[in-house]
């Protein structure tokens, strides 16, 4: 199939208007030897054939009835309003709102997104979105080095390992040095030369840091050092004290939990917020409220574009252009659909349900919860028989937890379990049951 509109007669007519004799003549600037003979690709497919093909392909992936896997991508219920709104063609078939007056709908929506995020995080300002949590963290790292004019970063152990890799790639690009340190050695590593300390909380292993303490330590030892927090599942902010209340300088998060489907890990949403004083150092688009030049009404417009690449080119705060607008819209709809009541309750259920599973697992012989700090919806469990647990989960049609040795080869027999509000009591009982069976097998000597 195709989406071409001209019939032969129309093409002929248009060629005449242009003053050429053939379509080939339109490509006269291309040297003959560069002209392609023929693309060696299959014939096109019609819609029914295409759909059948893709359905069959998709069936090679497995969908589970419930998931105990998180690790940076989470299953939360997505209100029907989210897909309804992002499917309105005025939204998803638009471009970046360069012509403000014909794009007030989207501009207002993103301004509302910025409002929702600043309220949620209690940070001063937030941009219109970054690609995802990992790149947002990398951009935060770079921003910190620009703001402080220093080239050294400290990453606290516990950041999502893939985020660390991304930060590493970006930092290498700009000759920024970084070191990953354990919490207890942090003080010893801090000095004047450090641009920022980056930490994740709740961290990759599930631990919720004592942010007050952490910030205090940093401020005491290195007053000019920025503190950057990252979060992979910000639904916890329904209950947890927000970064703005901890004097965090830059806060970033992966927004996928806010109404975006897992979709094999992308698209997600990079949430990026900072203190007011760093505004002009911030990467990414910003929507501002303004007035009509000759009128009384208010409206919205892309603003502070002089930070951006299309004006400042190599002096821009970042190279980002296309961002994740539709995902930001999705997350806005998620947040306003749930509202205060909903987000609080969701966070509460995540706390309660994962706590429940933690306690249940702890009573099964062979299992040991490794977290010493409070946790949100993820925690580390030492298992009597990891492979058997995975197997049992699959038999129950449950997406098994992460075997943590995938990222940390030294951490043997440990899984990272994720429990959210989307796991029903029944799902949870199945999981406990699977864990029990895996324990029995092991004791039985299997």
């Amino acid at each position, binding site marked *: 199939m195709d*989406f071409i509109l001209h019939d032969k007669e129309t093409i002929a007519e*248009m060629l005449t*208007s*242009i003053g050429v004799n053939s379509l080939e003549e*339109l490509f006269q*600037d291309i040297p003959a030897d*560069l002209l*392609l003979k023929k693309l060696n*690709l299959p*014939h*096109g497919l*019609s819609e029914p054939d295409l759909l059948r093909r*893709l359905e069959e392909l998709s069936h090679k*992936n497995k969908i589970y009835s419930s998931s105990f*896997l998180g690790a940076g991508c989470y299953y939360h219920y997505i209100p029907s309003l989210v897909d309804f709104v992002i499917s*309105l*063609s005025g*939204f998803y078939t638009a471009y*970046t709102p360069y*012509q403000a*007056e*014909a794009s*007030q*709908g989207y501009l207002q929506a993103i301004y509302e997104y*910025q409002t929702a995020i600043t*309220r949620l995080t209690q940070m001063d*300002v937030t941009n219109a979105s970054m*690609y*995802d949590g990992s*790149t947002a963290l990398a951009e935060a790292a770079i921003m910190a080095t620009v703001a402080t004019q220093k080239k050294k970063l400290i990453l606290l152990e516990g950041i999502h390992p893939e985020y660390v890799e991304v930060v590493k790639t970006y930092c*290498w690009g700009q000759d920024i040095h970084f070191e990953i340190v354990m919490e207890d050695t942090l003080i010893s590593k801090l000095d004047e030369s450090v641009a920022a300390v980056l930490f994740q909380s709740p961290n990759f292993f599930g631990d919720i840091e004592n942010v007050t303490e952490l910030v205090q330590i940093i401020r005491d030892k290195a007053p000019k050092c920025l503190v950057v927090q990252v979060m992979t599942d910000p639904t916890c902010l329904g209950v*947890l*004290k*927000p970064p703005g209340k901890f004097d965090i300088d830059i806060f970033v998060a992966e927004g996928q939990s806010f109404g975006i*489907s*897992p*979709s*094999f890990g*992308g*698209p997600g949403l990079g949430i990026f917020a900072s203190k007011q004083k760093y505004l002009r150092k911030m990467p990414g688009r910003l929507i*501002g*409220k*303004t007035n009509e*030049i000759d009128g*009384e009404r208010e*409206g919205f417009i892309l603003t502070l574009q002089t930070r951006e690449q299309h004006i400042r080119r190599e002096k821009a705060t970042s190279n980002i252009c*296309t*961002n*994740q607008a*539709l995902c930001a819209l999705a997350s*806005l709809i998620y947040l306003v*659909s*749930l509202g205060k009541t*909903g987000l609080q*309750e969701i966070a509460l*259920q995540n706390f*309660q349900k994962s*706590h429940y599973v933690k306690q249940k697992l702890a009573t099964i012989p062979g299992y040991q919860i490794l977290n010493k700090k409070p946790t949100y919806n993820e925690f580390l469990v030492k298992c009597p028989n990891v492979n058997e647990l995975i197997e049992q989960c699959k038999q129950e049609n449950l997406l098994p937890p992460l075997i943590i040795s995938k990222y940390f080869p030294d951490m043997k027999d440990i899984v990272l379990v994720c429990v959210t509000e989307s796991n*029903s*009591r029944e799902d949870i009982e199945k999981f406990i049951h699977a864990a029990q069976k895996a324990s029995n097998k092991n004791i039985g000597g299997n």
Partner: protein
Amino acid sequence: MTSNLTLIFNKGTKRSQHNFIPEMDIDKVDLLKIIPSSFQREDLPLPDIPEVKIVRHYTELSRKNYGIDSGIYPLGSCTMKYNPKINEVITRLPAFFQIHPLQEENQGALELIHQLSELLIEITGMDGFTFQPAAGAHGELTGILIMKKYFENKNLKKNKILIPDSAHGTNPSSAKMAGFSIIEVRSNDAGEIPLDHIEFAMQQGDVAGIMLTNPNTLGIFDRQIKDITNIIHKYGGLCYYDGANLNPMLGICRPGDMGFDIIHLNFHKTFSTPHGGGGPGSGPVGVIKELVPYLPGPHIIATEQEFVCREKTNNSIGRIKCFWGNFGVIVRAYAYILALGAEGLKRVGQMAVLNANYLRVLLKEKYHLPYDRICQHEFVLSDRGIPNEVTTEDIAKRILDYGLYAPTIYFPLIVKGALMIEPTETESKASLDNFVNVMNKIYNEAKTAPELLKNAPHNTPVKRLDAVLAARNPILHD
């Protein structure tokens, strides 16, 4: 002044909103047993809004927004083309939409990525692809980092890069993020790159290569492209292709054949995935064989039995994004390519160029066309000769009054008062004729009633907005 705006935050009520919260089916414990009160927030300043209000609010906002389903969207360099509806269905197939990036049973997803890589290899003439980059600029950064690594590995200190003055802002910006400094190449009168400048630059020994797009942002195909890439290669440099303008080349001419070593594609331009009001996009990067080991990992390999995931090689620049890239966008691009096939893709290239040239010849009757020659996907008019000091911006705003969207304005920078027009292949002749009609009317208005333009727009939800005020006193949230 009372505001004409009502934000969603003003639509809350004192009634709690429970529609989207599952019932709690586990015995609760006291939250304080889980988490100390000092860790808990005091208030959450979000409203509780009834469902009906949310639906109406955003239905109304969507109607205050122009999209490609409303009509022509002639933003040059952005390739705003029709987004097939079936792709929205396909990307939402549960076994694509609901799968976790870390789950094991993912053969369908791996196969899709692998197949798409094969298809793109044929379409572009490259040898390997990564899908991690989330947009064009992200692809640029990835590509330029590959360059950096390549020379690092060779222990060569090449920290400069050539970028034409017609380039998109992301090019210099991305290069900068990869630690390069930029040498701007001044285009010649034909809008092309002077070979001698390049040759001279390369002779200095510290230039890693060139970054360009062809056809360039003037819509001009650089006839000496092969010479350009040859010169770069002669000095051991690498050539980067900004694929944002690949659309007119589909099935016609391949970056690989032009001599490029690294390219990025913009799925949200060339491959018809929705722009979504500014993303999500997808900016896969393709490279020649020698550079395949430099791609971000992991890589997907087809064995006899299955598709497997190999961790990144030692040469790899490392991860550029978490997980697999914007998979949902990737699925749409894959579906689009399968749908069109060889003939369909070539048709895209041909019709995109036909449409652009048709507009070009009709519009140049009234408007100044600085580079007056056959164009490819787009062409650039200037504001020279517009009567009564009417500006490019005035014209753009007036276009909105006619219910259409405006071209890209004031870019590329090398054309003063540029109006950069790319109709794409998914406009009908009737739509193009209508656009010409509107542009001609506007030209006449500039002559006879310039105030109409200077105060435009008049028929939009708001009149012209004050950008200076916005930047001087940034109000970024309520």
